[in-house]
């Protein structure tokens, strides 16, 4: 069956698939716990009976019973060495009874996790599927189905295996949970975008849900589908009856969803768990003479990651491609990349996502590193930790191919120009993996001076790329921004090209904004003004740093004015609550109030300055403490108790207070006014290595005026008591986080009492409470750092 035959079949009718196989085999005697594929091979009459039942019920395509016949699954039964034999035999058996129906080889999950999410290398997964595909081809299958996939990367591996092995049609179905995502978190639209552009001939879903829930998934996919859609729902939702999972939706009810599926956009229908030949018969009866969605258009201005899709242009707000993951001019990043590290890359990714980037540009072009290796590492890390689609930025086709092959989504390639080498080497790579690409309007003669010449190159590259199936929707033209300081007319040429692309060619456009202002002071003004002008001429994307407030504010404002921000929602969300400059000038604070305010807001960067201003205004150190610092920290404590502040705010304010107090301390000592609240020795007990909680308590106690000696973690009782005696402590504070180490608290207290020492004990930690404190003879328990301060004060006064 050729791909064209497949499409012809789909355009002539709603194609009917088969129903469940496992349960039908059980009805025909397959015992529990056996390898179903081997059992089918050894009991050909049973599987052929199931398949004939489906064909007689109306199935146009039946699946070969090779669901678990990949090497990984067969190895679970010690049959890893029989992959070829089992697959080929099962394909031959299926073909034998297929009559006029078609047999598709069935590829399903390996049960392993594929990189970047798991330990199975991507190429090994591809090879596992290729092995199966090769045997099924030899068995004479008419096409392939990749089904019940919960990991988009595994689906990609199987799809690449089929594509690199033959030219037969291939359908891919993912399995979505009730929340509408796969277990790995991929939503239907992102899965569809990724798979259809990677070369699937039909995409859809099977298993997990009944027809009602699956309808919603197909509807969601319909608007962005560029290939026929497929649905293979269960017979309702599973129910547990007498310890057995059952699907109790009857055949007639199941088939009653047929028309809804056609309306939702499905061209291919079948059944999964719990369905029987009766379900397929009723389905076929209801679908007789009906046809589904007609031929769909090809291109789509959309990118995807494993968890998200991004649509570009079409009247939508401008999409920002975050530019920061690029070592050019970034010494710290360069240093890290040379050491093979990626923590700054990850930081940049999250930061840009947080600031509103829609896509992340990834460039690893740096002398002294292996660009391909670092690009692969980056793509794997970013695919894992960021939901944003990636823009693969390299001039090296090998680097781009390696990245596109491993990336679990539809990426954007940056870039392909009219240069012969790019057309010959980069374009086929981008096309193979279905990536969108940025078209750079320059050729072997360099950057054209005139707009007309740039237009000519744009037309040429679009024409060349159409040979690979590209449409203008899959392409983004770079406006080629040149610096205004060296050519005053350069921005105008870029704007003209953007307008022409947008209005006449209907192709999306992008600009690297910062080039325009190179060499000028106050570059953000030029960049944001140029952005506004370009948006008015139709610009749909920009490569920029989304952390630039001025740029992003301009962008949101322009989108609102250009009618791209429906109901002005994005604008209002961004700016609501922001006061204009004229109203934000706070009333002049008195010097005392400024100190108070600094503590209240945790502004340790302002506290010394505000205190100095207060001192300069003639306010005495003691008055600053009494009228500003103490009331402020008291209010902070109250706010924390009322939940108006949370822990980090409490600690920041306390840190600010401490810094302020330290600044005043020499003056207070001069006045003889400084005293501590008490002396505390604090430690995490022996055997326990958790100390963050203890550290925070120590910090807070210090901030509230206690003299704290912190002994660290894993501290023996003897050392604690020795230090307490040495410094004449008032209180010993003990911390433990585990049930195995909390008993050490008792050891310390017992030893103390045994030696008739008179320290007070306070304890804290996740596994202890007041009861435990009472049990071991501690004087008190505190549930958190603030509580510890209160307890310490109470113990000092008791």
């Amino acid at each position: 069956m050729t791909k064209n035959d497949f499409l012809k079949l789909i355009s002539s009718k709603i194609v009917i698939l088969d129903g469940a196989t496992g349960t039908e085999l059980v009805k025909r005697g397959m015992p529990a716990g056996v390898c179903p594929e081997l059992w089918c091979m050894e009991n050909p009459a049973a599987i052929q009976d199931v398949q004939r039942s489906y064909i007689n019920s109306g199935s146009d395509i039946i699946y070969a019973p090779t669901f678990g016949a990949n090497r990984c699954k067969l190895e679970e039964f010690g049959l890893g060495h029989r992959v070829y034999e089992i697959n080929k035999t099962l394909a031959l058996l299926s073909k034998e009874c297929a009559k006029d129906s078609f047999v598709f080889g069935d590829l399903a999950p390996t049960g392993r996790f594929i990189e970047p999410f798991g330990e199975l290398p991507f190429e090994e997964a591809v090879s596992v599927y290729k092995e199966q595909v090769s045997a099924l081809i030899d068995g004479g299958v008419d096409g392939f189905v990749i089904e019940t996939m919960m990991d988009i990367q595994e689906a990609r591996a199987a799809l690449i295996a089929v594509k690199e092995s033959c030219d037969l049609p291939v359908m891919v179905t993912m399995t979505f949970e009730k929340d509408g995502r796969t277990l790995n978190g991929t939503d239907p639209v992102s899965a569809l975008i990724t798979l259809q552009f990677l070369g699937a001939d039909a995409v859809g879903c099977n298993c997990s849900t009944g027809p009602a829930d699956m309808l919603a998934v197909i509807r969601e996919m319909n608007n962005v589908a560029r290939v026929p859609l497929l649905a293979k729902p269960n017979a309702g939702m599973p129910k547990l009856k007498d310890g057995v999972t059952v699907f109790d939706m009857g055949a007639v009810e199941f088939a009653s969803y047929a028309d809804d599926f056609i309306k939702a956009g499905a061209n291919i229908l079948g059944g999964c768990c719990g369905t029987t030949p009766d379900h397929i018969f009723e389905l076929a009866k209801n679908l007789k003479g009906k046809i589904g969605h007609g031929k769909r258009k090809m291109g789509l201005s959309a990118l995807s990651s494993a968890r998200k899709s991004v649509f570009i242009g079409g009247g939508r707000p401008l999409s920002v491609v975050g530019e920061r993951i690029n070592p050019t001019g970034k010494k710290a990043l360069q240093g890290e990349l040379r050491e093979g590290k990626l923590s700054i890359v990850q930081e940049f990714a999250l930061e840009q996502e947080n600031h509103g980037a829609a896509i992340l540009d990834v460039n690893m072009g740096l002398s002294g590193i292996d660009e391909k290796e670092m690009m692969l590492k980056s793509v794997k890390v970013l695919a894992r930790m960021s939901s944003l689609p990636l823009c693969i930025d390299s001039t090296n086709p090998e680097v781009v191919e390696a990245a596109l092959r491993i990336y679990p989504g539809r990426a954007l390639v940056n870039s392909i120009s009219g240069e012969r080498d790019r057309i010959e080497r980069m374009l086929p790579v981008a096309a193979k993996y279905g990536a969108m690409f940025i078209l750079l309007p320059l050729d072997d003669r360099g950057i054209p001076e005139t707009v007309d010449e740039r237009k000519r190159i744009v037309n040429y590259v679009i024409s060349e790329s159409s040979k690979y199936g590209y449409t203008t929707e899959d392409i983004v033209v770079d406006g080629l921004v040149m610096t205004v300081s060296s050519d005053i007319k350069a921005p105008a040429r870029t704007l003209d090209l953007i307008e022409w692309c947008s209005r006449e060619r209907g192709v999306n456009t992008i600009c690297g904004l910062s080039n325009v202002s190179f060499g000028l002071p106050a570059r953000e003004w030029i960049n944001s003004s140029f952005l506004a002008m370009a948006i008015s001429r139709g610009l749909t994307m920009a490569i920029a740093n989304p952390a630039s407030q001025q740029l992003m504010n301009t962008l949101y404002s322009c989108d609102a004015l250009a009618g791209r921000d429906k109901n002005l929602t994005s604008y209002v969300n961004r700016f609501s609550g922001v006061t204009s400059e004229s109203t934000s000038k706070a009333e002049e604070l008195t010097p005392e109030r400024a100190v108070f305010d600094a503590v209240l807001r945790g502004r340790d960067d302002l506290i010394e300055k505000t205190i100095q201003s207060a001192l300069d205004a003639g306010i005495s150190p003691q008055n600053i403490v009494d009228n500003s610092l103490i009331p402020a920290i008291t209010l902070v404590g109250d706010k924390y108790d009322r939940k108006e502040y949370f822990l980090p705010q409490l600690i920041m304010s306390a840190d600010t207070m401490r810094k302020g107090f330290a600044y005043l301390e020499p003056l207070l000592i001069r006045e003889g006014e400084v005293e501590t609240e008490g002396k505390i020795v604090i430690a995490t007990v022996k055997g326990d290595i958790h100390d963050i909680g203890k550290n925070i308590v120590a910090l807070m106690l210090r901030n509230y005026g206690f003299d704290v000696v912190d002994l660290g973690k894993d501290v023996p009782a003897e050392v604690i008591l020795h230090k307490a005696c040495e410094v004449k402590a008032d209180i010993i504070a003990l911390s433990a986080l585990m049930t195995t180490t909390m008993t050490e608290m008792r050891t310390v207290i017992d030893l103390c009492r045994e030696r008739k020492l008179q320290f007070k004990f306070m304890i804290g930690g996740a596994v202890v409470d007041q009861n435990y404190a009472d049990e071991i003879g501690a004087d008190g328990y505190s549930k958190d750092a603030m509580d510890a301060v209160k307890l310490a004060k109470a113990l000092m006064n008791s």
Partner: protein
Amino acid sequence: MRDVHVLNTIPVVFPEREILFRLKFNIHKTELDERQREKFKSIMMKAFALCKPTGAWLELPLLLNDGSRVVFEGGYEIKSHSIAELLRNCDSAFFMGVTVGGAVSALANEYINAGDGALALIADAVGSETAEAAIDWLNSYLAGYARRKGKVLTSQRFSAGYGDFLLENQRLFYEILDLQNFGVSLTDTFIFVPEKTVTAIVGAANTSSMEGK
């Protein structure tokens, strides 16, 4: 031979809400000014970027459950009434372990040493909640995996150190999941290092013999 399934990367979505909740942020009451919001968010991002959630899981058939002691294939044994109760109707159990690595705790320590407790606390919370999110993800994944094998998981999962499921059992998780392969070590007092490492057990009961469809 034990069939330990390794996950080099667990796809954790930034658990911002859980981190804030851990830090006692109250969505209705807590007031943050823009500067604080920006600062906290950027530290959370920085800390999250340092987390590398990885893990492993293993399904072991249950051979014996006498109400106070359970024995698994391979002779692995847990003495605990609560685990026996958890696995009362189960045929097998899934052992799971995840870690986010040590870099995030190192960051928290850096902040502490610089006297910046607020930032240390945030970094620590990010590490804890990312580890929790990772084991939640693994639990969900195993629920789907089990369902396809005709099994259902127990609605609860247990971690060592709670009730009579003593912390000593961390050694069992450590050994059968080969956690040393993830750079994890276990102290004499059964504490994992890096500390943002979480293990749990969940039961599985057979409901049907079919798989996939």
